[in-house]
């Protein structure tokens, strides 16, 4: 290809075009059309993967053009291995999420699917931007649709909860914007380019302040304890497709942000505050797991479990070693797959029984063995059983934390016990026992549901048994990133 960079631009533009098209379409075809668009996006993503040179640490498929020349703003995009993997995650999950919503009846479906695809463009933008301004714009472009998705299609109390979510994230974004503009002025060539940001040398004090500007935004997005309280409410209230987007893909924006825009740009800030971030992450693992023990709403339970999981991913990143970082990469993929699967299972149960409360449910395994098996497989991935996708990531992450500090790894390791406690409790209460009048006559999976869950289950096992293709995508880029960080710490 003469202009390989167009591939990245395509990946951003296609969902935008799709979004525009969908907003104009009326009628029942909109779901299918959205699925077709997302599958086309998947095809481009897979094509990019096939052309991707994993041995090259640099960003590939580069596209760079002046955007606002007077301010030094570029439309610069490209993918190294880290970006590539997250782009792959995005293009795989979006069609699954769209397909998983086929049984839902929405008011104004065209608006919903238009927003979902608009959000996908924003997400791809976040994962591929090589210009801080573009990064920020993409960040907001990914956020705005989800506000509307939650506020319009959400459940009970959605306005208050969306507002809380909004306040939280805008608070974070604001500080990040502040940080970006400050860094812009400090670059020698007054540029927003990532490479220029890597050149900036700042006093440790300035870096410490900037660390918090960026970290707050990222920590709220993931979320990390104690910046997490928007998350359980929002995940619970949002329509399931929105919850899947938030948990499956959006939270990875925060981790990606730390890896791309925080660690290498502000190494002295990381030296000063990385330990604090690490400890907050580890506290979050234990804290959120313990809260998950007694949650009665299954959706809220999974929301809390997600805080625990992402806490471990963040801890792995802040461990600043290859085990932790690579563990974070593969776990971002695995967590995305598993959490989408879990939320889908809960949605399926909700659609049939109109309840998500564990005490109303029970005995579903008697009536729906296929669902029970899929749920079991995804749950095993979530509790990191060896030969499922969750294990590889959790093993590497804990090993990374171990290399950072043994005691912290023992505390973080409680996740393998606590995760089993809340997951198995939930599974038992929902699936096992005798059927009751709510669950009697529960119908097993429909074709479209089977399609989604079978793909997810297959991914759980295939990645768990043979993780190499995933690991190799980001391996070189991660090593390179760690070298940059180390170099800039001296």
């Amino acid at each position, binding site marked *: 290809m003469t202009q390989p960079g167009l591939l990245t631009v395509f990946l951003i533009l296609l969902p935008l075009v799709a979004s525009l098209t969908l907003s104009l379409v009326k009628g029942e075809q909109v779901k299918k059309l959205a699925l077709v668009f997302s599958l086309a996006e998947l095809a481009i993503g897979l094509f990019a993967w096939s052309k991707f040179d994993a041995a090259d640490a640099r960003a590939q498929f580069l596209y760079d053009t002046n955007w606002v020349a007077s301010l030094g703003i570029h439309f610069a995009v490209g993918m190294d291995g880290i970006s590539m993997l997250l782009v792959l995650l995005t293009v795989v999950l979006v069609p699954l999420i769209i397909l998983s919503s086929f049984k839902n009846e929405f008011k104004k479906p065209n608006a919903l699917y238009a927003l979902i695809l608009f959000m996908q463009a924003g997400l791809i933008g976040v994962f591929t931007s090589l210009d801080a301004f573009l990064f920020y714009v993409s960040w907001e472009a990914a956020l705005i649709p989800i506000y509307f998705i939650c506020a319009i299609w959400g459940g009970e109390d959605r306005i208050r909860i969306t507002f*809380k979510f909004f306040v939280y994230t805008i608070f974070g974004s604001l500080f990040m914007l502040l940080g970006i503009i*400050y860094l812009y002025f400090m670059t020698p060539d007054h540029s927003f380019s990532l490479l220029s940001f890597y050149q900036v040398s700042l006093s440790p004090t300035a870096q410490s302040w900037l660390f918090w500007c960026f970290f707050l935004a990222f920590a709220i997005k993931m979320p990390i304890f104690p910046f997490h309280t928007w998350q359980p409410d929002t995940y619970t209230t949002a329509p399931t497709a929105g919850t899947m987007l938030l948990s499956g893909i959006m939270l990875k924006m925060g981790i990606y942000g730390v890896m791309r825009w925080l660690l290498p740009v502000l190494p002295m800030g990381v030296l000063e505050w990385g330990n604090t971030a690490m400890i907050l992450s580890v506290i979050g693992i234990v804290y959120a797991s313990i*809260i998950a023990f007694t949650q009665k709403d299954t959706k809220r339970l999974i929301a809390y479990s997600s805080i625990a999981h992402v806490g471990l991913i963040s801890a792995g990143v802040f461990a600043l070693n290859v085990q932790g970082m690579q*563990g974070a990469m593969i776990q971002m993929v695995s967590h995305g797959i598993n959490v989408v699967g879990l939320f889908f299972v809960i949605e399926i149960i909700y659609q049939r029984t109109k309840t998500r409360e564990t005490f109303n449910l029970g005995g579903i395994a008697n009536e729906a063995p296929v669902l029970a098996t899929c749920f079991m497989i995804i749950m095993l991935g979530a509790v990191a059983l060896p030969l499922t996708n969750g294990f590889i990531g959790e093993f590497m992450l804990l090993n990374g934390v171990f290399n950072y500090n043994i005691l912290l790894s023992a505390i973080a*390791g409680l996740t393998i016990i606590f995760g089993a406690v809340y997951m198995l409790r939930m599974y038992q209460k929902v699936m*096992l026992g005798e059927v009751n009048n709510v669950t009697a006559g529960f119908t097993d999976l429909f074709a479209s549901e089977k399609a989604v869950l079978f793909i997810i289950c297959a991914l759980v096992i295939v990645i768990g048994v*043979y993780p190499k293709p995933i*690991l190799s995508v980001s391996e070189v880029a991660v090593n390179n990133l760690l070298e940059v960080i180390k170099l800039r710490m001296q």
Partner: protein
Amino acid sequence: MVESFAWLIPVLPLIGFLINGLGNKNIPKSLVGILGSATVLGAFIISLMIFFQVKADPSHGPFIVTLFDWFSVGTMKIAFSFQIDALSSIMLLIITGIGFLIHLYSIGYMHDDEDYARYFAYLNLFVFFMLLLVLGANYLIMFIGWEGVGLCSYLLIGFWFKNTEYASAAKKAFIMNRIGDLGFLIAMFMIFSTFGTLNYTEVFSQASTFSVGNGTLLTITLLLFVGAMGKSAQLPLYTWLPDAMAGPTPVSALIHAATMVTAGIYMIARSNILYALSPVSLAVVAGIGLATAIFAASIALTQNDIKKVLAYSTVSQLGYMFLGLGVGAFTGAFFHVLTHAFFKALLFLGAGSVIHAMSGEQDIRKMGGLKKHLPITYWTMLMGTIAISGIPPFSGFFSKDEILGHAFAISPTIWAIGVAGALMTAFYMFRMFYLTFHGEFRGTEKQLHHLHESPITITLPLIILAILSVVGGFVGVPEVLGGSHELGEFLAPVFAASASLVPHHHTPEMVEYILMLSSVIGVTISIGFAYYTYVSKKVVPAPDSVMREGMSKASYNKFYVDEIYDAVFKRPLDALSQVCYKVVDNAFIDGIVEGFGQLTRWSAGQVRLLQNGNVGSYLFMMVAGIILILVLNLLIF
């Protein structure tokens, strides 16, 4: 070379799992059972060939078979590879051999179950993971098997998941095992950071350069032992195993007696060099083992559920195996794994045959006089009961004697406590046996009418296991009794490196004879006492409604350990969960956030940029931010 077919050993049961699991109810019942059993039989045949190859050339080191590179990160490279040597080849025979018999038994035992295919699928999956556990050439592959068998144990304990109690027992087993697994996991990290590899051969060859008492090795071995405590049900992580009896009885025989629960012993035997270099860890292993052996035996004395008696007996016997490891009798401990696999599988399957005949009744108080109705079950179980009691020349005698002999060399007190446990064992086993088979029938008229000997698929495994329980000990007859201890010789290369490190006190022959004799006499008296109580005096344990007192009450109620765990861990954690959720999250943190939110709303209202709503305050914040930055910028430059 045979070892190049080693991959087939776990793959065969995996295929069985996939076919029965995916085919589920579309496969005819007869085929399900045949398929499930045949895959394990196939694995047994290959295992046998491998065993003979290992035996033929003892000087050959371990065969390492690498299947593929699993993953690598940084300097850590994990290969999916198998190690075939004396230790793993015997484990293979136990797993596939006894596994096959139990599959065969299950064809009859589970015949009327509606989830027949699911049962065989799970059982095959268990065999697959158990084989991985013993075949792995590094700790991580062992860990795959380790957690995998835990999963299968969970699935099979909760096989009849409609029953909430059974489902809870399954969950408890999984969680308790996970506690141990965390120890194992951190031990692995530590092994890797110390040796730079997780491969056995490399770890052990490097370890031999460490000095005795090295602190790192001490930590590693203790952490590994935490894993073993979970999987092999030792104090304080044993309470899941008695509850695990909720599963179908063949499962109890295979998983919760013969194979999975001995994984902890396998792990320590495999890591023997690390333990030999850590005398403190050995002492801990011996201490926990001995304490568990006595404690569990003292609970078994008063239990009336036939499977619970056997479960506590298993916990106790596992304690003996750890005692053996702890006193440096690696071979003896492993010998006991072997003989225990024979007689405990036999006893469980026999109990299953009894339960089958009694239409599901498990309370020995409601049995009695079954001897004439179930002659094959009676005779085979008698063999098993004698074997576990330690009467020569039955198998249990030799292995237990080897452990106790080593214990005596370390300390006569340990020996005495161990023998006391053996006396309890003989008593509770014959108590169970007599109450079940002798005296008058105490069940209902309907049960009496239904009583029958089990079909051939059930009795044949009983007979084979009974023979093994009788003669199985001859592979390890000690020199002092004129044997050559073939098992010890076969295993010698595995324990060679640690042999010189473990103290070998020589006990004079005369003393050894006296030790054996005194324990045999003690056991005989114990059995006599059981006979006197339950056959001559026809005592039947009191019903549950009777108030018990003192030690008897404590033992009957299993020393209230479950209740204590509930009060110390479960309830406080659940309370903490609610406090974190309602107070910290919803009241405190959200309170602060709401405050911010109100502030924004208020200021948005003040500035009146837009009437209301989210977009308004959003824009407000954007503008405020930009202004703030410009101001900052002015100040800085």
